[in-house]
């Protein structure tokens, strides 16, 4: 494996990481506030669809982004109604949202575009352009660092940088602001927040809304950043992987970056090496295809201790029985 290959794999890993990271941070806010969310997949999917549809109609990537956020938030509101206002089962609500997104996207897509659930391909201004960071051209000749900067750091779309910046931003919000303190508290002991005179519902709604926005970004990145348009079921299980990464990350922002990067990296490696010939043994493609999942299990079993979810997670807040 030469240096250029390593850079290419890292470059690919960052792209593959981004939707996972956005969804993972989305889940982090919700679950840190005590609302479990297995509906990340569905929110991403409907956001991707909305981005595809709005982008196709308007030709503007900003319209696509806005539509993605709105659509994702609409589903987030359903989840909030079910799990906050009506104190329903958060897992059921998440499952329902995934089904809903999977059905609605194709149903609407078919009736709007007649392409079997696809949206027309997005072109030009309807897509996120790759950004060349300052200096990526001039630094290109510096050995080692130059190519790394040009290949890996520069040349991604806006949402990639946004996603990465969202990690320190989330950390700051969670650990350095009043809102974050309250949010973490409401996920661990909502009664403490309630007796401190702060609205449990308000906080949880805010968290769910943030989740909606971030899933919207993730979906928009899929449809208008990584590819150009919506294809049915195009999230392909990334919402579940993001959930796994969230647990892997023990519900912490920086670790979420690490976990999702690891997933991205493993997928990039498996993409690059569909089979690995190790002389006497050949790692078959089946193993390489399952590599990200196999490694996750191995790492989890070997290195990561017990994950401790927010204590009040998954339970509706009920004062009076």
């Amino acid at each position: 494996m030469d240096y250029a290959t390593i850079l290419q794999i890292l470059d690919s890993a960052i792209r593959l990481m981004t939707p996972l990271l956005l969804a993972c941070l989305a889940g982090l806010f919700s679950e840190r506030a005590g609302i479990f969310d297995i509906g990340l997949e569905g929110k991403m999917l409907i956001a991707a669809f909305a981005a595809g549809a709005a982008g196709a109609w308007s030709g503007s990537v900003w319209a696509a982004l806005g539509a993605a956020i709105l659509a994702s938030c609409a589903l987030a509101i359903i989840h909030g109604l079910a799990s906050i206002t009506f104190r329903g089962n958060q897992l059921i609500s998440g499952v329902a949202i995934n089904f809903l997104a999977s059905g609605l996207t194709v149903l609407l897509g078919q009736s709007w575009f007649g392409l079997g659930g696809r949206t027309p391909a997005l072109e030009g201004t309807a897509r996120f352009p790759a950004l060349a960071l300052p200096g990526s051209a001039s630094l290109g000749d510096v050995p080692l660092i130059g190519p790394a900067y040009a290949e890996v750091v520069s040349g991604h779309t806006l949402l990639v940088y946004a996603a990465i910046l969202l990690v320190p931003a989330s950390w700051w919000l969670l650990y350095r602001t009043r809102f974050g303190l309250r949010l973490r508290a409401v996920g661990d002991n909502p009664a403490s927040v309630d007796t401190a005179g702060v609205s449990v519902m308000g906080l949880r709604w805010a968290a769910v809304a943030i989740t909606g926005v971030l899933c919207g970004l993730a979906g928009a990145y899929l449809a208008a950043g990584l590819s150009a348009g919506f294809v049915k079921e195009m999230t392909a299980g990334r919402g579940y992987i993001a959930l796994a990464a969230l647990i892997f990350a023990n519900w912490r922002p920086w670790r979420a970056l690490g976990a999702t990067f690891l997933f991205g990296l493993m997928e990039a490696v498996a993409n690059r090496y569909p089979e690995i010939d190790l002389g006497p043994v050949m790692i078959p493609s089946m193993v390489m295809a399952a590599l990200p999942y196999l490694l996750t299990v191995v790492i989890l079993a070997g290195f990561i201790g017990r994950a401790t979810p927010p204590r009040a997670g998954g339970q509706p807040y009920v004062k009076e029985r």
Partner: protein
Amino acid sequence: MTPLPRWADLVLAPLISLLLAFAISALVILAIGQNPVEALRVMVAGALGSSYGWGYTLYYATNFVFTGLAVAVAAHAGLFNIGAEGQASLGGLGVALVCLALPWPHWGLALPAAIIGAALLGAGWALIPAWLQAKRGSHIVITTIMLNFIGAALLNWLLVNVMRPVGSMDPASADFPPGAHLPTLSDMAASAGIAWGKSTPANVSFLLALAACALVWLLIWRTPLGYEIRAFGKSERAARYAGIAPVRITVIAMLISGALAGMMAVNNVMGEAGRLVLNNVEGAGFIGIAVALMGRNHPFGILLASLLFGFLYQGGGELALFSSIPRELITVIQALVILFTGALDNMVRLPLERLLARRAA
């Protein structure tokens, strides 16, 4: 606020929720320019209007009963098994290995062997996350998700490279020997002199599913093991105080869960397909989660929820087959049913409680 009387809790509230779900579905149907009344007619007629429809409804319901029970047993132990999908697909492998191993003379012999094969492989696949959770603290939600993918890769590889007869285009195993074909419910009805549900896939596995419901009920609510599973699921600390070993319960509960998921394969692989095909579980493992949650993890509730989903599957299938409504509408209806009966049920319950309380007062 007084709690709802039992009849309202168990019948009235879910019924209203269901009606709400259907009402919204009707709006969706209207929105795509179709006739909801006609759609409902097609669904009901197609799923429940004939022995033929019932044959399919029961077939699908059978799948969901197994995966629903699997999710429920794990849930009683406080474990969220998202891996029923993978466990059921491994169960399919178990069934196929058993059925292809011998030229079975009669299904009566093949069935118990296949059940064991399915249960063993399903349980074995569940053992991995169970052991990792119990011994290493690896979160079972992640490991079961991962094992779904790994199982899919494994089956893909086996079917394409090992089990596929040479020259066959289909990534599927060879056909099972005739002695391993399970009698369908219509065969059984016919031998009792009743013409019922000709050429539908519902088969003797449905009875197996009913038996599984009864056994799971006994297990959970009538045996010491079930008592321990429930206690552990409610409070791990209390369980340790009571001498209930966490590792043992985690492993046993997941083994039972995986075995149940695996046994689904008796229905679809042995009873319907007669061979192992790629992606034979078709998402029933995930439907199992919804079914278990809606059925409140109780076997009877799971049976009802499975029938409901069987109805939606078959009725929806008919709708998509014989009308111009796209098949994704069914997914939307399913979503709405899950949402209203499962997650938004308090939306109905709370006003109902108020109403009944006012009437009582």
